[in-house]
């Protein structure tokens, strides 16, 4: 085992240096930031568009007296619940048929309130009527009192958290952690698929196979890619923290996960490493069977789809803590890291994580052994008289 680890370190160091000290690694680091920046720019723009232009408004086609009462009532309600939470009203020509008003292309409203304060009539498409009806009833009710709404002061007694609020927040946090680990794994583990092709194409595999156990080659490659991934994660994580600090302001606070922040962060790192190693060793085993880059590219799609299935399984389970699907997701090795990080957000027990990590590590070992066996049997043609899937040409003697 010591020799395997030593040899794995040699291979990992070579692979790591070969990737890190290249210009393409800069693109690797900066690549994921570009869509985020573009997304933020477009997000801000669309928010402005929706704020400025797309807020639903109703035209007010009533007598001048009743129009004034309705507008005053709307202002009074808006002061209490917030202008964003009550539909806007705009003066419209009166007396005019509401249908003809809505037929005008330059009308700035989606529906028309006509009639009187006592008997308002809302004209518009059914969906718009549904959206506006409650607001119009509230405004008309306030207008009908003919008096200023009395001011009532609400005394605020804030608490740090409520049980149901905390449960909900932790569920959300579990989901967010799952998605984050999944995205990072999908983004990074896929690269392992083509890792052995280089060695096979430039014949280095013969040197490696003669000098060290193939287990060390697989393990070394995983270690190198995992280390590279951590560099990426530290960089992106740093950018994300800086971005949050800038955008969210000092009042921004995340809910505390059930196991506490330090343990949660440690578990997130470990579960990411396990998810990466589990999927990575599987991809490495599959990719090692491929003879060319084209074969690897062909394998990419089904492998990605398989990842999605595993993720959806784990996502489904997160809502059902303690249920059979959740336990199954935690036990099934490939979905286990995703299910367990969600559990860490919601449940404070530590021992299931120790157990899960050991279980996952065991499966990483098993998958590597299986991959090595397949590689020796089908690629090196060792110890196999008849390959399982296809017959390769005999090597040159």
């Amino acid at each position, binding site marked *: 085992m010591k020799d395997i680890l*030593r*040899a794995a370190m040699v291979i990992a160091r070579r692979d790591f240096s*070969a990737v890190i000290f290249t210009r393409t690694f800069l693109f690797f680091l900066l690549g994921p930031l570009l869509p985020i920046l573009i997304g933020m720019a477009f997000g801000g723009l669309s928010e402005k568009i929706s704020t400025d232009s797309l807020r639903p408004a109703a035209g007010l086609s009533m007598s001048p007296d009743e129009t004034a009462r309705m507008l005053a009532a709307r202002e009074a309600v808006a002061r209490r619940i917030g202008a964003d939470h009550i539909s806007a009203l705009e003066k419209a020509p009166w007396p005019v048929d509401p249908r003809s008003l809505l037929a005008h292309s330059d009308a700035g409203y989606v529906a028309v309130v006509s009639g009187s304060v006592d008997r308002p009539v809302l004209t518009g498409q059914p969906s718009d009527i549904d959206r506006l009806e409650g607001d119009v009833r509230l405004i008309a009710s306030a207008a009908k009192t003919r008096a200023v709404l009395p001011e009532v002061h609400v005394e605020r007694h804030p608490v740090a958290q409520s049980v149901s609020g905390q449960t909900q927040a932790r569920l959300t946090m579990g989901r967010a952690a799952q998605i984050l680990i999944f995205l990072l794994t999908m983004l990074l583990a896929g690269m392992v698929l083509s890792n052995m092709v280089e060695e096979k194409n430039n014949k280095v595999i013969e*040197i490696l196979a*003669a000098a060290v156990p193939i287990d060390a080659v697989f393990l070394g490659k995983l270690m190198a890619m995992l280390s590279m991934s951590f560099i990426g994660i530290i960089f992106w994580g740093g950018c994300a923290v800086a971005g949050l600090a800038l955008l969210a302001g000092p009042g921004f606070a995340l809910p505390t996960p059930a196991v506490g922040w330090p343990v949660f962060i440690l578990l997130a790192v470990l579960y990411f490493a396990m998810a990466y190693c589990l999927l990575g060793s599987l991809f490495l085993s599959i990719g090692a069977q491929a003879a060319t880059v084209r074969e690897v590219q062909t394998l990419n799609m089904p492998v990605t789809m398989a990842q999605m299935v595993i993720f959806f399984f784990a996502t489904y389970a997160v809502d059902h803590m303690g249920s059979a699907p959740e336990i199954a997701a935690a036990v099934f090795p490939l979905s286990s890291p995703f299910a367990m990080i969600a559990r860490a957000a919601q449940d404070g027990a530590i021992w299931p994580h120790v157990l899960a990590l050991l279980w996952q590590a065991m499966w990483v070992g098993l998958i590597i052994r299986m991959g090595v066996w397949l590689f020796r049997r089908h690629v*090196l043609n060792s110890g196999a008289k008849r390959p399982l899937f296809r017959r390769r040409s005999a090597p040159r*003697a």
Partner: protein
Amino acid sequence: MLTLQPAYAVEAHGLVKTFGDFRAVDGIDIAVPAGTIYGVLGPNGAGKTTLLRTLLGIVDPDEGERTLLGDPQPLRQSRLIGYLPEERGLYPSMKAFDAIAFMGALRGLPLKVGRERARAMLEAHGMGASADKPIRQLSKGMAQTVQLFGTIVHEPRLIVLDEPFSGLDAINQGKLEVLIREQARAGVTVLFSTHVIAHAERLCERIAIVAGGRIRFEGSVARARDRLRPQVTLRTRASDGPWRRALPPETLAQDGNWHFALPDGGIEPLLRALLDSNAGIESLSIERPGLHDAFVAIAGESVARQMTEDRTREDAA
């Protein structure tokens, strides 16, 4: 602690390796004495590479057993073995000295020591200026030399070279022969495969002639050559006379020369007859047969012809 070096660096009995229905290695027994230069001779497709790969533990045999430096698990002795595969393989972006150190590190040599040795080796062979160049910028011959240095940088006790002369020009072939002899002088066992008889004849103390996955001959080069009797070529001024009765019955006359195998009783009776009959000896030579002749006699004319064709093809490439 005293460690005993096994008498044989490589030993295998009844090795069989099949690929589908093809028996690449068909029941081979081989024993390479420690500290010798040992050649595995045979045409392409004879099973040489598969034999070496099986001996090294890259592939496991279907039948039979093998030991390397006395160990039935060859990878356990990895630190003491150097291997140059037939298909050369290096990372193109790696610098020359780093590639050598990396190969040494795979076999347990600390990277720092490997780098120092790599620079010294490159310097000693006039390649110091190329030490920091990536492999992709080196010529094919230089890249092969780098890989050869990577094979010996960790100072192994057993070096296995698969067709080491393949792809090298005459100068580099000469350098490689010198290097192999230096290693052997230092007590290292060198096992190499080749389809060029001349290399085996010049370098090897013992050879195994392989054809069709089987060993046709195993022993010293001298013993291989001794399988044929020395050849006598005689030229006389007189074309006929009573001395002709002293010539062996299978004697061939060609271009005024008489060719025959040295008789069991030696050359003296014939010489006496030639002198007594005043035949006038113009020339007389007795030559031991070369390894090529021995190879033809052992492996057959068709196998020998294939080896010649392999070499011609390689030279043309």
